[in-house]
């Protein structure tokens, strides 16, 4: 029964976006990728949620600026386990064109484990959808791990 539930769970990834000081380019791509009928991520069971408490897959964009750092980490803590993070764009991993800027500190992966990285400035919608699918793979593995450790 638990096994079945874990198998089913991977087919309902609910997506939450965090903007960690992004220039909005990746956010526009994310809204385009997951919201318009053309790419229809709902067929994968995805749903955008407004609340971090409902989220399974977190899409993070932007180079964690100093001003939003604490808030991003706080929102990240509010997401219930098991959760998977996807870094959208080059900024979360390297800082992108904002690297070494006065308002940018250490990269996101110093604070939050990044499971999937979708590079690009901004990445294409198809790439973001593929990133979400890969994140679902990571999530499934995590659920099964959890199952093993429980039993």
């Amino acid at each position, binding site marked *: 029964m638990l096994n079945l539930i874990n198998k089913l769970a991977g087919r309902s990834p609910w997506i939450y976006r965090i903007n960690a000081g992004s220039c909005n380019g990746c956010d526009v791509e994310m809204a385009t990728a997951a919201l318009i009928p053309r790419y229809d991520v*709902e067929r994968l*069971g995805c749903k955008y949620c407004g609340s971090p*408490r409902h989220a*399974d897959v977190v899409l993070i964009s932007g180079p964690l600026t100093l001003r939003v750092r604490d808030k991003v980490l706080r929102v990240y803590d509010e997401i219930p386990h098991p959760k998977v993070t996807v870094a959208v764009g080059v900024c979360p991993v390297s800082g992108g064109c904002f690297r070494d800027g006065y308002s940018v500190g250490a990269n996101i992966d110093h604070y939050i484990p990044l499971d999937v990285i979708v590079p690009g400035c901004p990445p294409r919608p198809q790439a973001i959808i593929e990133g979400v699918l890969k994140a679902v793979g990571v999530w499934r593995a995590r659920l099964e791990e959890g199952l093993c450790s429980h039993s």
Partner: protein
Amino acid sequence: MSSILEAAFATVVFPGGLFALALGLFLKGMDRKVLARLQRRVGPPIYQPVIDIAKLLTKETLIPTTANELAFRLAPVLGLTGMLVAAALMPVAGVWNGVTGLSDLLVLLYLLPIPAMGLMLAGGASSSPYGSLGYSREMAVMFAYEMPLIASFLAVAVRTGGAAGPMLSLSGIMAYQIHHGALLLDPVMLPAVAALIVFIPGTMGSGLFDIAEAESEILEGPLLEYSGPLLAVFQLMSAVKLVVVLELVVALLCPNPIPGGVPANLVWHVGKCLLLLLVSVTCFRAATGRLRVDQGFAFFLKFTSPLALVSLCLAITLR
């Protein structure tokens, strides 16, 4: 003894309990699928709501430190229980006639606001500002749609005039329609039919009336702080509420059974609920956006209530 067994069967298996849950999840899935097809998308599988609930069971339950934990945990259970009781009272034409004395519009009038109460309790207990906003919006919309609902209930009751037993009992209303034809086609009742059909999206919060749980505006309001199994209970509550509301409107407007015994009537009943859902919820929410709170409130007071009252007056004068 047999009456106790019967009541237990009605609550746990049919028409409440398992049947209501299964039908509710099926209707929710059809709603999402048809909406997707209307938008030229593939859409999720019809059993997607079941997957969502299975998923939510694997998630962690987080409770805000500032929340009132007891009320926070109790709210979804309260809403679901209320709706399961209501679902057990709903008659299915040609299959089940409801509980004598309890399948009554007066009882349902008290049971129907329970999910909204659950959501208000949830919004208040979660200690989140968005929760409180959702609380006040839920209450405003509820006050607005209760009035046309009561007026249409009365119009239906006066029109059917207690053909068999008490005026407000559902079995009497159904018996009248089986003899005299469905109220759906009764010209006197047309305004009330319109009011009842608008009541469905109003109470389910879809389309124009997605006011209390507006996810892009107040982040799903009362549900904002809920996660994991408790959120799953809220989803089940919403699914059973959909069944109750649709079955109620079907019983009031078009409960006529077809020849062919119990299985055929069961399919006929589900088909009627599905058709009503597609018209009043799916197409409606595909075609409309959200109203502001005050606009939603005014909509019910200005358009829906007068419609129901016109039917009531006509029904009284033509008695």
